[in-house]
C-alpha cells in the first residue's frame, strides 16, 4: 500500500496516515530489540551457570512440572494463531471476527496464566522455594567410634528437592549427584525467567483487553488501523518466542518422559491423585 493512499485520522504531528502507520510499526520493532536484550541478559547468566553446573541444572529441571509446561505451550501457540486471525479480520473490516479473535487470544493467554499459577502453587506446596529457611533433622553421625543420632539444621529446600526427585524420576532411589545450593540457583533462574515472562503476558493481556474495548467502540472501523492490531501481535509473538526458549532451557534440560508429563498434568488439574 503506497504511503500517501492510506486513509484515516492522522495524529497532529504526522503528515499523513502512511507516515503514522510506518512509525508505529517501527517503534514496536525497536521496543522488541530492547526486549531481546533484556531477556538476553538473564539468558546469558543462565547459560554461564548451566555450563558450569550441568548436573545440578538437570536435577532442578527434573523437579519441574513438564506436563503443565507442555499444555501451556500449545495454549500459547494457539493464541498466536488467533491474534494473527485478528489482524486479518481488522484488515478486511470484519468487526465481529476481530472481536472474537481478540477475545480468544485473551482467553488462551489467561488459561496459560491460570495453569502457570497452579504450577507455582504446586512448586510452593512441594517446598521448591529458594531461600535460607532451615529445619531440624535427625542424622546419624559417627562420634568417638560410636554411631549417634543428633539433630542438625538442614535447609528446607534440600529436603523438599530430595523428596520430589525421589518421587518423580528415580523410582525411590536416592539421587545424590547434585549440590542443593546450585539447584537453588537453577530455581532462582526458573522463577525469575518465568516471572518476567508472566509479567509480559499480564501486560499483553491488559493491552489486548484495551484493544477489545476499542474494537467494541468501533475504533477499528477505519481499516488502516489494523496496524495497531499488527503491532500488538508483534509483541504477543515476541512473548511466545520467549516461552519457546524458556521451555527447552528450563523444562527440557532434565530427564522427562511423556507418560510422566501426562500424569503430572492430570495431577495438577485434579484428575488424578498420584499413585506413587
Amino acid at each position, binding site marked *: 500500500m503506497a504511503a500517501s493512499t492510506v486513509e484515516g485520522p492522522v495524529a*497532529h504531528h504526522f503528515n499523513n496516515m502512511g507516515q503514522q502507520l*510506518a512509525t508505529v510499526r517501527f517503534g514496536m520493532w*525497536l521496543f522488541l530489540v*530492547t526486549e531481546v536484550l533484556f531477556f538476553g541478559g538473564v539468558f546469558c547468566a543462565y547459560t554461564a551457570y548451566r555450563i558450569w553446573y550441568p548436573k545440578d541444572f538437570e536435577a532442578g529441571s527434573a523437579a519441574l512440572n513438564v506436563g503443565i509446561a507442555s499444555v501451556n505451550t500449545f495454549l500459547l501457540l494457539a493464541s498466536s494463531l488467533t491474534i494473527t486471525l485478528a489482524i486479518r479480520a481488522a484488515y478486511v473490516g470484519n468487526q465481529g471476527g476481530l472481536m472474537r479473535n481478540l477475545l480468544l487470544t485473551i482467553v488462551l493467554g489467561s488459561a496459560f496464566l491460570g495453569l502457570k499459577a497452579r504450577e507455582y502453587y504446586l512448586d510452593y506446596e512441594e517446598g521448591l522455594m529458594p531461600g535460607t529457611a532451615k529445619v531440624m533433622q535427625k542424622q546419624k553421625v559417627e562420634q568417638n567410634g560410636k554411631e549417634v543420632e543428633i539433630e542438625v539444621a538442614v535447609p528446607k529446600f534440600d529436603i523438599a528437592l530430595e523428596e520430589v526427585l525421589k518421587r518423580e524420576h528415580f523410582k525411590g532411589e536416592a539421587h545424590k549427584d547434585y549440590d542443593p545450593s546450585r539447584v537453588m540457583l537453577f530455581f532462582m533462574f526458573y522463577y525469575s525467567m518465568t516471572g518476567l515472562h508472566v509479567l509480559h503476558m499480564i501486560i499483553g493481556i491488559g493491552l489486548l483487553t484495551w484493544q477489545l474495548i476499542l474494537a467494541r467502540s468501533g475504533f477499528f472501523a477505519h481499516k488502516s488501523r489494523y496496524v495497531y492490531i499488527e503491532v500488538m501481535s508483534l509483541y504477543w509473538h515476541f512473548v511466545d518466542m520467549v516461552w519457546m526458549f524458556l521451555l527447552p532451557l528450563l523444562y527440557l534440560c532434565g530427564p522427562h518422559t511423556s507418560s510422566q508429563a501426562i500424569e503430572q498434568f492430570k495431577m495438577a488439574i485434579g484428575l488424578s491423585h498420584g499413585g506413587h
Partner: protein
Amino acid sequence: MADILLEPARLDYTPQMLPEPEVSFEKHPEHKHYLNHEYGLLSWLLTVDHKRIGLMYLVSVSIFFMFGGIAAGLVRTNLITPTGAILELDQYNKAFTAHGTIMLFLFLIPVIPGVLGNFLVPMMIGAKDMAFPKLNLASYYVWAAGALFFVWQLIVGGLDTGWTLYPPYSSKYSHTSVMYAGLGIFITGFSSILTALNIIATVHKMRCPGMTWGRLPLFVWAMYATSVIQLLGTPVIAVTVVMLAVERMVGVGIFDPNLGGDPILFQHMFWFYSHPAVYIMILPGMGVINEVLTCFARKNIFGYKAVAWSSVGIAVVGFLVWGHHMFLAGQGYYLAMVFALLTMLVAVPSAIKVFNWTATLYGGSITFQAPMLFALGFIILFTIGGVTGLFLGTLGTDIHLHDTYFVIAHFHYTMVGGMMFAWQAGLHFWWPKMTGKMYSDFWSRLAAIVMLVGFALTFLPQFAVGYLGMPRRYPNYPPEFQIYNVLSTAAAYVQGIGYLMPIFYLGYSLFAGKAAGNNPFKATGLEWQTSSPPSPHNFETTPQVYFGPYEYAVADGLKIIPLNDGKIHDIVHEDPDLVGTTPKEATHGS
C-alpha cells in the same frame, strides 16, 4: 543567484536553487510561541510538546546536578587533610557513592538526550514533534519516578557501595539501601530506553522533505548513535539489577561464590551496559560540538561523513570493550589482551572526530563567544581525557594505574571536561532559541574561563597523585600527597563558582535579557529558521531542505541566511547590510 549557488558543485552537499520565498516583513503583533500559547501548571505537566518536555528535563537535571555537586564538594573537602577533614568513614563512602550515582544516572545520561535531544532533534529534522509525543512525556515521568527512588535512598541513609554496585559490597556486606538505588537504576533506565526509542523512530520516520541522511545535522547523527547504545545496553543492566535484587531478597548465590555464583559475572554484565554508557554520556556532547564549532568558525564541517560514521563506529565498538574495566578482576589473560586491543580500536573514531574538528577550525573566521569558548575547552580537555584513557587501556600500565586517582582524573576529563563543557556549550548556544532571550556576553565568557581554570586545576593534580599511587575511594592518604589534594580541593571550589554563575546570568536574561532574534549566531541549522521561541508546531509550514547543514560558505558569501519560510525580518534587524532587502536583492547586490 542560481549561478552562485550552483557553482560549488564539488561540495558534498550541492546547494541547489533557493525556493522563491514569499517574503513577509510583517511582524506578528503578538508572537504566539510554545511558552505562551497556553498557561497554567497543567499545561506543563500534561504537555506532549517536545520543547516543553525538554525544559522540564532542564530544570530537573539541573537540580540533580546541584545535589551531585554538593556531594562532590563534601568528598573534596574531606580530602583536604590526610585523615579526613569532616566526614566519618562510612559517611565518606556514602558521599562519593551519592556523587557517582546522581551525576551518572540523574545528570550525565539524561542531560543532553533529555534536554537538547528532545528540544532539538525534531526541529533539526523539520518535524512537528517527536514520533511518539505521549511516550515522550511518559519517559519524563518514568525518569522522575526513578529519580525519586534515588532521593528516597539518600533520605533513608544513603548507599555506600560505590556507583558500580559490585557484589558482595552490594549483596552480602551492604546494609544500606541498595534496593532503592537498584529500583532507581531500573526505572531511570527504562526512561532512557523510551527516549532512545523515540529519537530513533523520529530520525527514521519524521524527517522533512529533502532532509536526507547525508544532510542530517551531526548532532542528530550523534543522538542517533547514542540512542542505539541506550536501546541495546540499558535492558542488560536492568536485568542485572533484577538478579542482584533477587539475590538480596532470596539469598541465593547468583553473584556469591560461597553459594556457587560468580561476582565477575556481575561485573561483565554491569560493564556491558556501563562502558557503552560512557558513550551515552559523551556522544551527544560531541554532537553539540559539531554544531557550535561550525557556527563560530563559519565553515562547513571538515569530513562530514567521517564524523557521522565515527559516531556510529563509537556506538558499535563501544560495545566490545567492557572488559578493560576488569583487567585486574580475574578475567583470562587472552581475554584481557583482546579487550586491550579493542580499547585501542575505540580510540580511533574519537580521534577522527578531534582531527576533523581541528581541521574545521583551520582557516575559519573564528569568534570567541561563550558557546565557542566552551567548545574549545571541550576539545582540549576531551583530548587529554581520551589520551590518558589509552594509558589505562594498555595492560601493563593499567596494572600500576588501576583504581588510582589517575582513573578518576581520566574519566572526569572526559565526563566533566568533555560532557559538562559540551552541555554548557549547547545550553549557551541554544538558550536564545529556547527562551528568545540573550544572556550577558561578558558574564558568560567569564563563566567559561572560570570553569576551565577551575576544572584544569582540580584534575591535573589528580593525574600526578594517581600516578604516585593514591588509590581511589580511600578517605585517608599519606601526608606527602596533601599538597595535591589541597590544590585539587581549592580548584574544585573555583569550579563550583563557575557552575553557579550561569544560574544567575541565564536566570537574569529570562527577565531582563534583550530579545535574541530568530538567529542571533547566524547559524544555518533548520532550528534557526523558525522563530525564537518556536511556535508550538515548530514551523509555520513543513520546511523543504535543499542543502547540507553547514553551508556557512554559501550563507556568508551571499550575506543571507537561507530561510525556508522566507521570513527574514530578524536578520534585517541585526544586519545593516540587509536592511530593506529580500534575499534576492541581497544576492544581486553583493
